[in-house]
């Protein structure tokens, strides 16, 4: 064996290239490469240590110590809506009922299902009704999607009201949260308007007459409606009053449908998103979820100095 080695070395030193030497060198390189491959493969066994993973998830996923638990929230663009820590008793839904969060979740569901429905809907008098039938019969999962959109909308109105009810019962509109309450009232109105504009879009008897009745009330607006108090005196007619502005005409027709569509899909969602952003921001700035807070006694109330 040694002799063979010596022989090989001599041959190498003398620069002789023999076939045997080449093959052996190839084998060596292959062996070295294989060892390296095995070594590197070992590191991929734990995907959480790879560069790809670490570049996406900047924080370790072993979330059992306080620092990582906080970082899980603080370093995530979606989750950092929440603070890192909250009142221990607010975690259970008995206090908050979770209705605000559920309302927001339903808004996301509605946006997603709504966008999908938009792929098959033309806001034209000729096509709108037909498109709903098309969705229900010729589009795979179209019926499910339409149903989900409608029921999520109804559910969202209910959860908004339950949320408002809860806020009143827990007094969470009191200082310093008064402004956030007002933003919430605006959001309630926007939710109802979203529901109302969406109601017309199928262009069926149900939607058509609901919107007719609704917008007919607009023509009775004082000062701005042609049938309201002092409207006629101000020169308002069915062709220039506030109802005309809403419908884009004096009747609920093609223009009204298109306007309802745009309000429903773009106008009001944009405005609602802005108000929601303010609403969530103020929740954090006003101190997070209001409670359950320690009870205050009547004797601890401050009395004004005057009396």
């Amino acid at each position, binding site marked *: 064996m040694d002799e063979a080695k010596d022989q090989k070395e001599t041959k190498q030193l003398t620069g002789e290239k023999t076939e045997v030497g080449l093959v052996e060198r190839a084998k060596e390189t292959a062996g070295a490469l294989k060892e390296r491959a095995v070594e590197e493969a070992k590191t991929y066994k734990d995907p959480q240590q790879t560069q790809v993973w670490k570049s996406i998830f900047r924080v370790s996923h072993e979330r*059992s*110590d*306080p620092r990582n*638990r906080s970082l899980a929230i603080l370093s995530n663009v979606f989750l950092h809506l929440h603070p890192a820590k909250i009142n*221990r008793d607010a*975690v*259970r839904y008995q206090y908050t009922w979770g209705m605000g969060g559920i309302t927001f979740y339903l808004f996301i569901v509605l946006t997603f299902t709504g966008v*999908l429905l938009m*792929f*098959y809907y033309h806001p034209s008098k000729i096509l709108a009704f037909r498109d709903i039938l*098309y969705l229900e019969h*010729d*589009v*795979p*999962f*179209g019926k*499910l*999607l339409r149903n989900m959109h409608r029921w999520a909308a109804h559910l969202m109105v209910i959860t908004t009201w339950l949320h408002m009810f809860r806020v009143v019962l827990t007094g969470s509109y009191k200082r310093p949260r008064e402004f956030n309450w007002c933003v919430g009232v605006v959001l309630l109105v926007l939710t109802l308007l979203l529901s109302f504009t969406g109601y017309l879009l199928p262009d069926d008897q149900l939607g058509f007459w609901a919107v007719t009745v609704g917008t007919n009330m607009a023509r009775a607006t004082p000062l701005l409606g042609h049938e309201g108090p002092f409207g006629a005196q101000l020169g308002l007619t069915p062709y220039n009053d506030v109802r005309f502005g809403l419908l884009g005409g004096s009747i609920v027709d093609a223009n009204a449908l298109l306007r309802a569509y745009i309000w429903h899909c773009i106008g009001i969602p944009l405005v609602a998103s802005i108000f929601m952003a303010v609403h969530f921001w103020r929740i954090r700035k006003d101190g997070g979820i209001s409670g359950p807070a320690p009870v205050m006694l009547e004797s601890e109330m401050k009395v004004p100095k005057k009396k």
Partner: protein
Amino acid sequence: MDSGPNKETSVAVAESPAGPPVPPAGKVPAKAVAAKPPAVVVESTPEPPVNKMRRRIVWYSIAGFLTTCFLMFVRFFLPRAIFEPSSTFKIGFPGDYALGVDTKYQQMYRIWVDKTSDRLFVVYARCTHLGCTPDWKASENKFKCPCHGSGYDSEAINFEGPAPRPMDRAHVELDAEGQIVVDTSRLYKWPKGEKNEFNDPGAYIPI
């Protein structure tokens, strides 16, 4: 749900143990914490092994649900029925056409009817370069595509410009009355260097 938060003891809250802890009105938890705050802080307890199975079931169910949703999402974009004009239509009798190129149905169906001495065929008026509609230049006896200048002879065979192959021909056949029935959803091609489909039975009507 209750046991988790109640057991969590975080980094020592500086609460001086002033006398025995006062039990709050209402429930008293089974394990009362001693008067001294604990020295070592542990948030998580060692997990019993059975939790891993539960966890796996939950994650797989979620993954399954989301996958199903994704598949539904994809399928949603492929309607089962569409409303497009029919690709099959009639264009009269072979005797109605003179020799050469007839542009009568170019606007209505995007085809030219071409009659030669031995056959009648229908050319689909789509340039094989990038899909524009060429013009028939009768005075020059050629089709010229305005987009990039591809030129085709009177039988729609390309001879100049970037077109890679002759214009396609639509399927033609005679119905019971002898009328020509065209089907533009079935096209015959002659790609360069490959099989010439123009002589296949449905590609022309022999006269």
